[in-house]
């Protein structure tokens, strides 16, 4: 029988139980709290898999822009993590100088669209610290190239393909800034996660690109070295630290 109210289980899951409520946890049926916290985490994972946070963040940004202007700052990472449980990074190849500004926007057919989230907690910057379990949402802009591959390597020598979904799928990319359809949680690989956006104007060889990534991932300088690809293929990378 359930004895703990939902709100208390939510706070216990975040280790934010008010002191006035601690006694209620002690009085709960044995195992209830652990089971319900586990169920919440499963629900979170299902939700994030079904609804990546990128579109929700974009909606929130739109509504913020529609409100009367007032001084804004972004939330501490803990606050965002408690709600959306996700961060976003952006990889932009061939980015003109003005597009690296914090407040950048890009124009697509005359309509301004925000493509960079501001400050730490929402938009991760190169070499920001992350840890196992952090949920990452990737957005990209192929910078006019017609084909692209997004993959990552980590400090354990692992290689993960993020786009396309499978090595056999087409590498066509859409114009403008796009979110990948799924967010993902970082594993416990040590030292770093390094994301690559590989672009070209000809269809890309995904298995060949993955081979090049595997070769790089095994090297001692994998966190810094350039991916060994033909000169006609452009590459941009984005590294996150895992202290």
């Amino acid at each position: 029988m359930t004895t703990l109210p939902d709100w208390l289980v939510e706070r216990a899951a975040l280790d934010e139980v008010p002191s006035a409520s601690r006694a209620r946890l002690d009085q709960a049926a044995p195992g209830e709290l652990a089971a319900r916290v586990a169920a919440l985490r499963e629900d979170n994972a299902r939700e994030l898999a079904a609804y990546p946070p990128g579109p929700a963040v974009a909606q929130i940004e739109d509504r913020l822009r529609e409100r009367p202007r007032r001084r804004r700052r972004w939330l501490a990472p803990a606050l965002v993590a408690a709600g959306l449980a996700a961060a976003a990074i952006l990889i932009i190849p061939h980015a003109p100088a003005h597009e690296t500004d914090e407040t950048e926007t890009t124009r697509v057919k005359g309509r301004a669209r925000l493509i960079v989230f501001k400050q730490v907690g929402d938009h991760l910057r190169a070499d920001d610290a992350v840890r196992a379990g952090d949920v990452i949402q990737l957005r990209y802009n192929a910078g006019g190239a017609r084909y692209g591959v997004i993959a990552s390597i980590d400090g354990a020598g692992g290689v993960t393909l993020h786009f396309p979904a499978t090595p056999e799928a087409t590498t066509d990319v859409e114009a403008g800034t796009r979110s990948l359809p799924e967010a993902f949680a970082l594993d416990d690989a040590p030292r770093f996660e390094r994301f690559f956006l590989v672009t070209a104007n000809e269809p890309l060889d995904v298995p060949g690109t993955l081979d090049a990534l595997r070769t790089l991932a095994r090297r001692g300088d994998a966190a810094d070295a350039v991916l060994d690809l033909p000169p006609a293929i452009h590459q941009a990378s984005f590294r996150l630290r895992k202290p």
Partner: protein
Amino acid sequence: MVLRRCRKLLGDDTAARDAMHDVFVQVLSHADQLADQAPSSLLFRIATNVCLNRLRTKRRRPEDGGDGVLAEIAEATDPAARSAARAMLDTLFRSEPDTTALIAVLHLVDRMTLEEVADEVGMSVSGVRKRLARLRTKLHAMEVAP
């Protein structure tokens, strides 16, 4: 957490997702005034207020989730006349201060103790008790009125 809270109060997934966006808009709009401690409490409170405002300003259809919240409060305040109490709460919540509605939901729906409610809304326990007593008195007065 925010989405689950909005779902519980609004009873509708689409409305809950829309409300969730509003919650974060509110949080971000006032971020320079907020402390970062216990963000779950802050998000929970803002989500509750956003949903209550929606219930207050929107003319609900019978199948909407807001009736579920009102029904829970009505049952807690007047189990013998649940249906009538629900209708009266609907009217009452449109005229009562936001804090009273929040207090009622926290205590009567979320089963927070008076101390927990006081902690949550930043009032004294006696202040919370008075608000709840006033709500019950008004409900009773509406019930006996011709």
